[in-house]
């Protein structure tokens, strides 16, 4: 293999319901536990059984942040996988399959026929363990040992008892040994043991969930919708341990109104959905805006319009989220580029939501939601938690509490009803006075718009960090990305010779756009020869936002709207015309 550093890609393919995520997940974990950097991504259909899905794992001894098109090892759990992905296997790669399952025998040298099912029956007395055999076989091929996998199996089958654990371990060993002894060219993998590091393996959706948890989120309401369901799952799975209230609502309208109700009542609250479900939350969003109730909303994109491609990826809801809801009120939108950013930005989302009493969005997409990355650690000292809610003692001695008191910052005191002595908390979706009571006169209206919107806007803008510049500090060519394209653009920049003076400019704090005082990114763009917006959408929404807010127009645009993420290869290909 002609890689500069150790850089392998495994792809596990098969039907929905065959347990691909289990096999792929176990392999990713094993690799990360023994110290490799791992990057995975998933490609699956909107069905529960059948069809074709795959789970791709790239691993390396260097940091990696995107997927490649070509694979080194293809683990084919069905014939279809071989037919679809054969052409993506590198020259010196391998295809692991079971000719009995595939009902076909392949003679080309890259094929390694391993009787997954037969071994499972022989060793584990049950064909369901064929996947365990296959997982072991992949590790055998790579000669990486079985310790980590054994631990994972012990964990996974804890509830099923020791016998099941032992059977699975035996199957894994059998697969491992079979591969080691029946692999003619396995030395091709001059695989180096990684230098041992304890690495975290985390995907976007867990990072958001953990970010919420560590920000003091106590209430999460949602309605299942791919690809946002993972947050609901995660929060529910942690409810017992951390005393969270997680409510599956009857619909998304209820979900957002619940989050608002909980936040009004005094706890940090969050809701989430995908575009179609968020569409139903739009009126509720304006309620949060009007009542100045802090909430965090996760909007996890998939290709639309309408039901679209439910399990695929796209970045086409940006302007929708930006301008969603009638009337005018401040909002913040973050769109993380990595799970690490997802974690910190979720934390920051809560901070800003609570500080300014506004809705804050974490926007992402199926791609980042499902991609697992490895990290040495998340620095928990960086987390912020400020309690802006007023209770008993904070209000002591106060004569009259006014929920919407005018102030220089536009921020009014946010008391917890029932926990604030005898002070009463009055919130209203109508235009209201300082006390929260309905009004109709123009003068109060003007003051409230100033308080709620115009005074807060400049303060919020100051909180936003500059975009990240990666590569040449005075670039001739700038690749501008936002959100989940971070990883792939970054790796592509790495592959371009330095003398081409290329840089990536990446925005994860999307709205408001950062101020230009500290880092004049517009000047930098103006000084470049070529500026290319790279977006997973057809109309280039971030480019529109940039132009609307700053007047700057990217000279070129690369759009991908087939529901799939950019890979390193296809982005490089697209860039060919310019570089």
């Amino acid at each position, binding site marked *: 293999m002609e890689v500069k550093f150790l850089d392998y890609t495994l792809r596990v393919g098969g039907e929905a319901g065959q347990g691909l995520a289990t096999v792929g997940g176990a392999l990713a974990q094993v690799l990360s536990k023994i110290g490799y950097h791992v990057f995975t991504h998933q490609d699956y259909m909107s069905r529960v059984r059948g069809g074709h899905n795959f789970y791709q794992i790239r691993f390396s001894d260097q940091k990696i942040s995107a997927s490649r098109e070509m694979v080194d090892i293809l683990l084919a759990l069905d014939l279809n996988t071989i037919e679809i992905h054969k052409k993506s296997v590198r020259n010196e790669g391998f295809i692991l399959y079971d000719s009995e399952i595939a009902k076909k025998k392949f003679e080309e040298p890259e094929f390694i026929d391993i009787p997954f099912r037969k071994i499972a029956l022989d060793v584990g007395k049950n064909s369901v363990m064929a996947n365990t055999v296959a997982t072991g076989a992949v590790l055998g091929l790579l000669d990486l040992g079985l310790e980590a996998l054994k631990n994972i199996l012990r964990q996974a089958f804890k509830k099923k008892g020791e016998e099941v654990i032992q059977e699975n371990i035996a199957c894994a060993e059998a697969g491992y040994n079979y591969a080691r002894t029946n692999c003619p060219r396995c030395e091709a993998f001059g695989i180096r043991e990684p230098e041992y590091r*304890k690495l*975290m*393996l*985390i995907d976007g959706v*867990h990072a958001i969930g*953990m970010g919420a*948890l*560590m920000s*003091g989120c*106590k*209430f999460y309401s949602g309605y299942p919708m791919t690809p946002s369901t993972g947050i609901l799952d995660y929060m529910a799975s942690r*409810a*017992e341990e*951390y*005393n969270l*209230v997680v*409510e599956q*609502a*009857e*619909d998304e*309208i*209820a*979900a957002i*109104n*619940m*989050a*608002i*109700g*909980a*936040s*009004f*009542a*005094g*706890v*940090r*609250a969050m809701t989430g959905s995908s575009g179609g479900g968020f569409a139903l939350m739009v009126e*509720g969003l304006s*309620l949060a805006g009007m*009542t100045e109730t802090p909430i965090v909303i996760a909007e996890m994109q998939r290709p639309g319009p309408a039901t679209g491609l439910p399990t695929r990826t796209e970045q086409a809801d940006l302007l929708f989220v930006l301008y969603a809801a009638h009337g005018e009120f401040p909002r913040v939108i973050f769109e993380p580029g990595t799970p690490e950013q997802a974690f910190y930005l979720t934390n920051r989302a809560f901070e800003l939501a609570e500080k300014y009493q506004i809705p804050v969005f974490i926007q992402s997409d199926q791609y980042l939601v499902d991609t697992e990355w490895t990290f040495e*650690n*998340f620095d*928990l000292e960086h987390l912020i*938690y400020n*309690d802006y809610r007023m209770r008993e003692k904070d209000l002591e001695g106060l004569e009259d509490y006014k929920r919407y008191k005018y102030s220089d910052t536009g921020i009014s005191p946010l008391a*917890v*009803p*029932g*926990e*604030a*002595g*005898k002070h*009463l*908390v*009055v*919130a*209203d*979706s*109508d235009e209201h006075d300082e006390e929260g*009571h*309905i009004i109709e006169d123009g003068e109060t209206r003007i003051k409230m718009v100033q308080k709620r919107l115009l005074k807060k806007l400049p303060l919020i803008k100051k909180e936003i960090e500059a975009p990240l510049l990666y590569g040449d500090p005075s670039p001739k060519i700038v690749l501008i990305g936002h959100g989940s394209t971070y990883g792939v653009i970054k790796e592509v920049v790495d592959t371009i010779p330095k003398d081409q003076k290329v840089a990536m400019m990446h925005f994860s704090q999307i709205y408001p756009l950062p101020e230009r005082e500290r880092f004049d990114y517009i000047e930098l763009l103006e000084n470049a020869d070529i500026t290319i917006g790279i977006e997973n959408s057809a109309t280039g929404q971030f480019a529109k936002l940039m132009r609307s807010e700053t007047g700057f127009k990217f000279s070129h645009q690369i759009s991908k709207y087939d529901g799939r993420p950019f890979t390193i290869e296809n982005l490089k290909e697209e860039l060919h015309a310019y570089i």
Partner: protein
Amino acid sequence: MPTSEDYKGQVPAWCPGCGNFQILSAIKQALVELGIEPWEMLVVSGIGQAGKLPHYIKCHTFNGLHGRTLPVATAAKLANHSLHIIAVSGDGDCYGEGGNHFLHTIRRNPNISLFVHDNQIYGLTKGQASPTTAKGTKTKIQPDGVLSEPMNPLAMAISQDCSFVARGFAGDPEYLKELMKAAITHKGFSLLDIFQPCVTFNKINTFKWYRDRVYKLEEGYDPYNRVKAFERSLEWGDKIPNGIFYKNERETLEEGVPAIQEKTLVRQKFSIEEVKHEIEKFY
């Protein structure tokens, strides 16, 4: 002990003679008699004439969106179940725009009282048919008369085993107040549908119309019999029963949610230190 004065809010913008006035005073009276202090009380509403009630009372209030009273109220209860919560709604608000939440809140059974000011019309938007408007009623939007059968909220609530189902009448505020007290003290989700004459837009269901028809469920009526309650909820026409139709002792939502068994959610202090170990799970 609170007095009626303590609960006095702004001057209502309702039409003179509107049934809402009696409902408002009955609520205040019920709260005073139950000894609930304004700062222990949260009133949540949607939008409509009924939905303006939070401005005319003095306690914690949340006046939200048309139709969305119940999700807000439910979540507020989960966040702080030491608050008493009344959800105030209209027939359009609760059964029209908010019909889905009505259904599912019954299933959830939070310990909340829902008072529906049922004037069988959209008041605030000036006289369109509501879900409870009689078939055949002519309005601007239905110049040939409403085609749909009116909804039966009590029957629907009973059909989903709602924990407390009652009906009152603004024209009998004394009894109404008693029903309110029963609803508030009942453990579980309680529906109190209130006949509320809209003197401006509903020229059919007037004070007189209701007074001529309304009677109280007889002494000895057994509110624990669901089928019987259903049967009585179908009575409509010359005689329409008021009272507590149905009750049960279902577990409440708050009793079921593990996180709030020891303390209300708002009282649970958060510190990053206590959750930091979560990160270990990703190694």
